[in-house]
């Protein structure tokens, strides 16, 4: 036991994370948008309201904008900020790949080697995956984005 005994807190609170927390990117709800979702982390009360605006349909669909508002801890806020950097401007197909890579990293309990080419700033969250209680925080914004995007794509069919 003692999963994180002796572990450096610094491995969770990377400077990149604290930077995004202090100066979040793309924060605030913006128009226009295709859909808006509200996600809650019941174990801690973190909440996010998130909007996506796509352009095009099917395999060509592109993420034009992601905007959000919410309250939560540094991890959930920073993670949402990093996420917007990574998905805005990408095709939905590519962005979903990044999301899956991030999900994989977070579920790895500190074991995965993150791919910096894919995850960029999000590699900083590798340390969070060692703290089971915080994994959900890091995933909140990503899951909300995935949900909203799926809703838009389904609606287009």
């Amino acid at each position, binding site marked *: *036991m*003692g*999963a*994180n*005994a002796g572990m450096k807190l610094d491995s969770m609170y990377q400077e990149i994370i604290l930077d995004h927390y202090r100066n979040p990117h793309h924060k605030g709800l913006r128009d226009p948008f295709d859909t808006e979702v509200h996600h*809650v982390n*019941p*174990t*801690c009360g973190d909440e996010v309201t998130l909007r996506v605006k796509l352009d095009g349909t099917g395999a060509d669909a592109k993420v034009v904008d992601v905007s959000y508002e919410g309250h939560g801890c540094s991890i959930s806020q920073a993670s949402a900020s990093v996420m917007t950097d990574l998905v805005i401007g990408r095709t939905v197909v590519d962005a979903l790949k990044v999301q899956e890579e991030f999900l994989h990293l977070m579920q790895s309990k500190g074991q995965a080697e993150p791919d910096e080419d894919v995850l960029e700033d999000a590699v900083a969250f590798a340390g969070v995956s060692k*703290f*089971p*209680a*915080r994994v959900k925080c890091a995933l909140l914004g990503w899951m909300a984005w995935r949900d909203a995007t799926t809703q838009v794509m389904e609606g287009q069919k």
Partner: protein
Amino acid sequence: MTHTLPGLLDTDAIRKDFPVLSRTLHDGKPLVYLDNAATSQKPKQVLDALNRYYEMHNANVHRGVHVLAEEATALYEGARDKVAEFINAPSRDEVVFTKNSSEALNLVANMLTWADEPFRVGPGSDVVITEMEHHSNIVPWQLLCQRTGAKLKWFGLTDDGRLDLSNIEQVITEETKVVSVVHTSNILGTVNPLDAIVRRAHDVGALVVVDASQAAPHVPLDVQALEADFVAFTGHKMLAPTGIGVLWGRLGLLEELPPFLGGGEMIETVTMSASTYAPAPHKFEAGTPPIAQAVGLGAAIDYLNAIGMDKVAAHEHALTAYAIDALKSVEGLEIIGPDTALDRGAAISFKFGDLHPHDVGQVLDEQGIAVRVGHHCARPVCLRYGVPATTRASFYLYSTPGEVDALVAGLEHVRGFFG
């Protein structure tokens, strides 16, 4: 009389793990514990797990960011993983911790009390049980029927202690919403032919609940092979602490059916006017769960796995065959239930001449032999076989042929005492 029956476990080694088994009673008589169907004894490995939990890791689970809370959560959820693997559950989220089998069975009955279509139970629908159920698998269904207006039906028993399924098409019909049946009877020892019941129930669209309280401790239990919809069992009969039970249920059903107890841990979000619920299994675990007890159950499962459930089953089967033979040789003794070891668990009920089981049990106790006497929470079985009560000896992985011999000798002594 041979004490090296094929299939026996190394009970000398096993018994050393169980502190209580070296206890003596009544001026030095060694304890002969033959009351395992009521509850099992606990190996020190389980007690060590409990002590370690309380001395090192104790905290409330979930929603904690401190080390103890994370450790306690990992241990509690780790126990869920162990249970899921032990019963071959398709998903760990199908394992709901309760306080005992009785709560698990009531949980199902209560979900159905409040269920919407297609699960709604009401006037015009039937609930089917059997005459060999434990009271904990009778009363919840009686309450469900009283409260919803459904009708309770049941399978009767044959003279040799088996389910009478000859009228299965009349008992389980299109009106049947749920069939709840015991895997292994705690009073008769009978192992029931669940296949036929599951098949018929599913043909008519009924849910199937299996009371595996006397199966999980004794034989390999595979919920996928059973093909039932819910399976209930209880920790204290399988080397684990009191205060912990399990309901396994199909994930789709756990998602669709309404919650039972409301409170902390089972919610998604709460406002004063309305709440939404967490996904299964947490939806059914209101309040602080039996954390240490789940950890103890995990340790019990480790212990059983280290021996192997197939080996446990083989041991008990050999011992039961031996015991049935030995008991049949006792004059005036009549077994209530199947009198061969075929499709049979390790609980053997009997009548002993005209002596009342209370008197039999009391005089056996004086010799250090612990059996259970009474209706064993299965009074309809006693009514069916025209006895007020039975004496029941029941075995487990640490029971020995020598203990069977002690029982037989004890019964001869009982006869002399009242003779």
